[in-house]
């Protein structure tokens, strides 16, 4: 779960990381009033979860009220890479002489947290990592001790941060690590961390991704989640509500299955046999009939879907429960909205096959046959 910039800034500021003064606004008048209050120049920044906001016109620097009005008017309501902008952050512009990068993430290869510092801030850090990996200093942290202050200093001095601000940068890094650790961060990042002409450091941007598996012990952040995901994909929001692992894609074959690896494989096979997956939907382990009904409801409500394939290999999940759910979902229709192919294997598949109403669906025995049939169905509907 990714926090919005304004949320991450608040979390960072509360922890003691210097951030520019700022106000959130959802209309032009409030944005101008906020700009007047803060004092020019200010930056007006679209609050949406997309990368490259600046280049796409979602961030504008303004020097007076007229410019502020014009910028707020242009940004509020704009469509930024497919997402509607309904809020802006009005923020004091920082008079900077230098841009740094600091970040903390989990190094999955090492199974350890890693803190990072670079003097090449303000640019796409992933590109820097690829072109010039030595430009980013990495310091692994023992998660049972946390980051020692010397480690923060070591990273900052090794990165070649100017001496007069090194202590402040080390302190920001240390705070960022503690925050990442306390709040179950997946990634925490400040890019850029600006060095002002007065030799102060200020977090001009803030990125905080939270480990979704840890939200149960982060009630304050869990509350921010609904807000953070607002304005995103409607179907993905619905999937959250139903508690499915769901990813929307741009094809027309709807895919429902159990278990991440098998559902991914079903997607890959749809592609292999010349079709295009419309979604990834994992109903999870041990799904009961109601969950299966909800899954079909979700995929049917995606207007891009022309055909559906249901692929279940029961372990914990039972074929009879799945069959009951499919029947329930389909029996309510006078006409089935999209053709459904079902493949049941594993636990209780035979009981499932007895229950399944074969007037409503097509049954295939193997994964390969089921996928090919669903791809053919989609092609037929498409014509």
């Amino acid at each position, binding site marked *: 779960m990714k926090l919005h910039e304004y949320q991450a800034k608040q979390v960072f500021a509360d922890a003691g990381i210097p951030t520019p003064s700022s106000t959130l606004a959802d209309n032009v008048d409030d944005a101008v009033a906020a700009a007047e209050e803060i004092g020019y120049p200010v930056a007006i920044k679209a609050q949406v979860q997309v990368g490259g906001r600046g280049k796409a016109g979602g961030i504008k620097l303004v020097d007076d009220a007229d410019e502020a009005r014009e910028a707020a008017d242009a940004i509020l309501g704009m469509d930024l890479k497919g997402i509607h902008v309904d809020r802006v952050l009005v923020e004091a512009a920082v008079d900077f002489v230098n841009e740094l990068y600091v970040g903390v993430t989990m190094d999955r290869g090492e199974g350890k947290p890693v803190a990072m510092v670079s003097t090449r801030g303000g640019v796409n850090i992933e590109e820097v990592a690829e072109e010039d990996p030595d430009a980013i200093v990495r310091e692994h942290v023992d*998660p049972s001790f946390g980051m020692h202050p010397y480690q923060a200093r070591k990273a900052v001095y090794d990165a070649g941060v100017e001496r007069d601000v090194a202590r402040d940068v080390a302190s920001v890094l240390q705070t960022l690590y503690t925050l990442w650790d306390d709040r179950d961060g997946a990634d925490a990042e400040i890019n850029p961390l600006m060095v002002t002409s007065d030799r102060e450091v200020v977090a001009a941007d803030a990125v905080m991704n939270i480990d979704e598996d840890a939200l149960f012990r982060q009630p304050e952040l869990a509350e921010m989640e609904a807000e953070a995901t607002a304005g995103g994909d409607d179907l993905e929001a619905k999937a959250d509500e139903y508690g499915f692992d769901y*990813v929307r894609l741009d094809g027309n074959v709807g895919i429902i299955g159990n278990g*991440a*690896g098998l559902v991914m494989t079903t997607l890959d096979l749809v592609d292999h046999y010349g079709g295009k*997956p419309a979604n990834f939907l994992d109903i999870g382990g041990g799904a009961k009939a109601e969950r299966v009904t909800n899954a079909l409801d979700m995929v049917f409500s995606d207007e891009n879907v022309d055909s559906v394939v249901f692929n279940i290999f029961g372990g914990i999940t039972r074929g009879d429960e799945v069959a009951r759910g499919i029947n329930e979902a389909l029996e309510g229709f006078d006409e089935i909205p999209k053709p459904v192919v079902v493949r049941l*294997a*594993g636990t209780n598949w035979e009981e499932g096959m007895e229950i399944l109403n074969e007037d409503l669906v097509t049954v295939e025995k193997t994964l390969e046959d089921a996928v090919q049939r669903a791809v053919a169905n989609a092609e037929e509907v498409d014509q």
Partner: protein
Amino acid sequence: MSVLVDDDTRVVVQGITGGEGKFHAGQMIEYGTNVVAGAVPGKGGQEVHGVPVYDTVDQAAREEDADASVVFVPPAFAADAIFEALDSPVDLAVAITEGIPTQDMARVNKRLSEVDTRLIGPNCPGIITPGEAKLGILPGNIFEAGNVGLVSRSGTLTYQVVSNLTERGIGQTTAIGIGGDPIIGTDFVDSLRLFEDDPDTDAIVMCGEIGGEDEEEAAAFIDDYVDTPVAGFIAGRTAPPGKRMGHAGAIVSGSGTGTAQSKIDALNDAGVPVGDTPEEVADHIESFL
């Protein structure tokens, strides 16, 4: 023959009084697994499926001579349960739990480096030696004893590939589900080493997926060390960057690492054929035997 578990393995089930723990302990016993104890704090003295329950894993291991543990404990308490297993006399801990916070697993990972106990999982279906023992939630009836070792990051994909093998009469020595999380105990390299060193494993299936670099590391290891023929499968070819595909670890990063293609290329370079479908994986294995 087999790796890690067989019919001598004496199993303690952590969380045996919970819904999942109780059901799957029963399934394991029915399969023939030597389940000797349960461990649940506060429930010591009870019995489940005729098996004595202890308050701690340490007590269960000492009293019943258990040498392996299976963890069916909810995510919030699972890391603590794994720590408990690692600090007890058992040699092997299998963590089934899905959704353990990654930072908890980083701490577990640190502890693993200090102890001799092996961890499989978390977020995995477990391990099975067909006809002898299963530790976890795998459906026993699709497996058959034989000479193919299988290691996989995904549970249901394992079932799919195993059924493709079993249908052709190709049985398995042991199948290890290593789990779909970013930080796991036993990885591909560990599992490949076990199968390579097992005289009864004549071919190996390795099922990977997008995210991380474990498959690339495995490919390098195969190149260096493994003479047993290996066939691979990689799930997630169609996954878009930046989206988590169900498993916490199944995500292609924004900078393009962890893609299916990079894994397939690495495996091919190490001489490992990668099937486009599970059926093709079985074709490769058949050609090896």
